[in-house]
C-alpha cells in the first residue's frame, strides 16, 4: 500500500483538519503541517499505528496552544511506531506532548516551549513519553517546563541524544525507567540539569541501567519554580546531575560545572511511603572521567536539607560530588556488598563529600568522608542501549 501524504496548512479550521487526519490516518501515512503558526483551542491526539507527523522545521511549524480551552495536553499519542518530527508545540495548558503505553516512538527535532520564560503556570512536561518501550529523542529542544523539559517515565529502552533543555525545573529526567542512554545533550539554565529518579507507588519502579555521558550540564542556576507537591520542587537551584534511588547508573565523560549548589548528588528518596516493594537507596553507581567546573559557590538552602547539610559539613568548601551515604540498616552495620558500592574514578581534580550516617549522628566521630580516593575502583561499563530505530 502506498503511503498517503496529507498536507495541512494553518487556517481557522486547522484543529478540525488535523484531528480528522490523525483519526482517519492509515498505518504508513504521513501528516505534514506546513510552515506557519497553527492556533489550536483543543488538544490533539493520535491513536493509529505507524503514522508520521511532521512539520517543516521546529522554528517554522508552530502549534500554538496559548488559547487552549480543553484537553490536558497539546498532543497525545497512544499508538505504536510513531514518528514526530520538525515542529514545535508552544504554551500547552498541561503537558506539551504526552506519549503513553506505546512501543517505538521517535521525537526528531521537535521543540516544546513555554514562551513567557520560567513560570509555575507553565505546563509540567515538554516531551513526555511514559509506560513505553523503545523511545528515541534526538535533536529536540525543551524550554520552560514547570517540571521537566524532557521526561521519560516508567519506560524501557530509551535514547535521549543531541538535545537541549533550558529554563525548565528539571532539564532531562529519567524516572522509574530501565535501560536508558542519555548522551550528547546540553542542559543549561535549568534548576537541575539531569535527574535520574525513582518514585514509590507506581506500576513500574526500581529504575536501573542508565548511562549519562558526553553531556554538558552547566549553569543550571534558575530558581526552582515548580509548584509545591511535585518531587522536582525539592531540587535546589544549581544542581548538575541528581541520581536518586536507582541502581546501575554510569555517569561518565560529562562536562558539569557552574552549578550554584553541587555538580553531582547521589541521594536516597526522602519522603515517607507505605510501599514495601520500593527500594529508596541508590546503589551500584559509577562516576568516572567527568570534567568539573566551579560549583557550590552560591548554594540554594531554600529547598530541602541538601545544600545546608553540604555547606555545614564541608565548612563552605563545597564538593563536586555529594553522596548522602544512606543504606539499609543492615549495611550500616555490616557494610555494603562490593557490587553495590559507589565507584568514583578519574574525575580530574574533582572533590567529593559522603556522609557517614553513624558518625553524623553520634558525637566525636567523623561525620563525613572527604577523600575521593576512598571510592576508587574498577569501572564495569554498562551495555549500550540499542533498538531498531528504522521503524
Amino acid at each position: 500500500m502506498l503511503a498517503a501524504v496529507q498536507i495541512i496548512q494553518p487556517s481557522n479550521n486547522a484543529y478540525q483538519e488535523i484531528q480528522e487526519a490523525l483519526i482517519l490516518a492509515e498505518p504508513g501515512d504521513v501528516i505534514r503541517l506546513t510552515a506557519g503558526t497553527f492556533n489550536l483551542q483543543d488538544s490533539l491526539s493520535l491513536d493509529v499505528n505507524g503514522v508520521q507527523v511532521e512539520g517543516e522545521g521546529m522554528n517554522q511549524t508552530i502549534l500554538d496552544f496559548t488559547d487552549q480551552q480543553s484537553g490536558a495536553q497539546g498532543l497525545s499519542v497512544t499508538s505504536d511506531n510513531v514518528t514526530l518530527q520538525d515542529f514545535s508545540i508552544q504554551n500547552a495548558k498541561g503537558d506539551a506532548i504526552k506519549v503513553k503505553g506505546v512501543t517505538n516512538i521517535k521525537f526528531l527535532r521537535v521543540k516544546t516551549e513555554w514562551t513567557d520564560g520560567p513560570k509555575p503556570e507553565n505546563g509540567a512536561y515538554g516531551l513526555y513519553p511514559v509506560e513505553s518501550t523503545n523511545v528515541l529523542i534526538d535533536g529536540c529542544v525543551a524550554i520552560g517546563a514547570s517540571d521537566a523539559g524532557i521526561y521519560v517515565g516508567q519506560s524501557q529502552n530509551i535514547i535521549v541524544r543531541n538535545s537541549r533543555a533550558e529554563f525548565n525545573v528539571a532539564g532531562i529526567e529519567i524516572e522509574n525507567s530501565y535501560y536508558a542512554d542519555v548522551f550528547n545533550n546540553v542542559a543549561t539554565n535549568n534548576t537541575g540539569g539531569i535527574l535520574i529518579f525513582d518514585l514509590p507507588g507506581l506500576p513500574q519502579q526500581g529504575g536501573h541501567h542508565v548511562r549519562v555521558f558526553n553531556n554538558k550540564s552547566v549553569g543550571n542556576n534558575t530558581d526552582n519554580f515548580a509548584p509545591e507537591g511535585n518531587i522536582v520542587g525539592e531540587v535546589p537551584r544549581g544542581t548538575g546531575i541528581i541520581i536518586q534511588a536507582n541502581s546501575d547508573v554510569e555517569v561518565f565523560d560529562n562536562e558539569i560545572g557552574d552549578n550554584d549548589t553541587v555538580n553531582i548528588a547521589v541521594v536516597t528518596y526522602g519522603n515517607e511511603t507505605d510501599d514495601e516493594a520500593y527500594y529508596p537507596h541508590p546503589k551500584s553507581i559509577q562516576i568516572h572521567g567527568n570534567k568539573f567546573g566551579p560549583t557550590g559557590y552560591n548554594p540554594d538552602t531554600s529547598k530541602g536539607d541538601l545544600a545546608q547539610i553540604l555547606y555545614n559539613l564541608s565548612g563552605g568548601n563545597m564538593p563536586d560530588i555529594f553522596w548522602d551515604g544512606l543504606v539499609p540498616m543492615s549495611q550500616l552495620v555490616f557494610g555494603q556488598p562490593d557490587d553495590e558500592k559507589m565507584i568514583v574514578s578519574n574525575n580530574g581534580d574533582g572533590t567529593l563529600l559522603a556522609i557517614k550516617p553513624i558518625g553524623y549522628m553520634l558525637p566525636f566521630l567523623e561525620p563525613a568522608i572527604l577523600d575521593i580516593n576512598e571510592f576508587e575502583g574498577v569501572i564495569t561499563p554498562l551495555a549500550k542501549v540499542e533498538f531498531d530505530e528504522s521503524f
Partner: protein
Amino acid sequence: MKAFKKLFLISFFLVSFGSQAQASVQSNLLDLTQVPSYLSEFGFFQDMQNQVPAEGVHPYSLVNPLFSDQTDKLRFVFVPEGQKLGYEKDKVFIFPVGSTLIKTFAYLNQNGSLEQQLLETRLLINTASGWKAISYVWNKEQTDAKRAIAGATIPTSFVSHEGKVMDVRYRAPNQNQCKECHQVSKVMTPIGPKARNMNKLMQYESVEMNQLTYWAALGWIDQNLKAEAMGDYADLSASLNDRARAYLDINCGHCHIPGGSADTTGLYLDFTEQDPEQLGIFKKPVAAGRASGNLKYSVVPGHAKDSILLYRMNSLDPGIMMPESGRALADEPGIQLITDWINQL
C-alpha cells in the same frame, strides 16, 4: 407485584410496542468499514427528534451517571434478536457482537424557559473486531445528527438544576477522547452497564419496573441473576463513605484503575481499591505539575481544602481540571460530597 404478573405486563408491552414500531435497525453493525455519515441511517429511532426508539431498541438508565456539564442523557441499547448477554460479577455485561449502546446528550431544560436541545449522540458498537466509538452531533433543526470525527464545540445555554440559565462551551469529544475513558489495557469497553449500576427501577412506555427484570424478560440475562445494587451517590440515607466511593468510581475510576489511561499516576479511584495510599491518602503527586495547586497530597484526611483531588475537581483550567475531558463546568454537588467525605476521614 408478583413476578408472573410483571412478566405478563412486559410481554403485553413488548407486543404493543412492536406493533407500533415504524422503523427497524438497518445498518450492518458487524462490519463498520463504511461508517454512516448520519445517525438516522442506523434506524435506531422511529422518531429522531423526540428520541422514540425503534423496535428492538430499549431505553435504560444508570444508578450513577458520570457528570457531563449537567446534560440529560438518554440511553438506549440494541441487542441482535435472539442473543444473550454474559454476566460477570462487578464487570460490565458481555454484549453479543452487533449490540449497540446509544447515548444522546441533551439539555431537556424541563424546568425553565429554554427549548429542549439535543447536542450529540454517541454510539458504542460491538463490531466483529471489538467495540467502536462513533459520535454524531445534532444539527440546528434537530432533525438529524452528523458524524463528528474530530468532535465539535457547541457554545450554548441551558437551565441548571437550580433553575438558572447558564452558558457553556459544550465540547463533544473526538473519537480518540472516547478511548481515553473507554479503554482499559488497550481494549475498548463500555463503562456504565454493570449489573450493580443497572439494578434500579425504570419507567418504560407502559410500566415501571426493575431494569434487570426487564432484561430477563427480554431473554437477555438470567432471571435469577443475583446482583447487588450500587449505592446512589445522591441518596442521602446511604453512608458518606459509600456515596463518595460510588461517586469517585463512576467519575474517575474508569481512568484511575490499573490498566486505565491514568494508571501512570498510581492513583486508583475505582470502587474496589482498598489501599489508602493508592486511594490518594497522603499520596504525593507524580506528574501533576501546576495541577498540584501547591498542595502536597492528593487527599489529606480532615482537610478537603489541602487535597489536590478536590482542587482539580473545582478547576475549569484544562491544564488542571479532572476529569481531563468531558466537562467545562464544575460539579457542585459532587464537590460538596467529596469535601464532606475528606473532612470526615
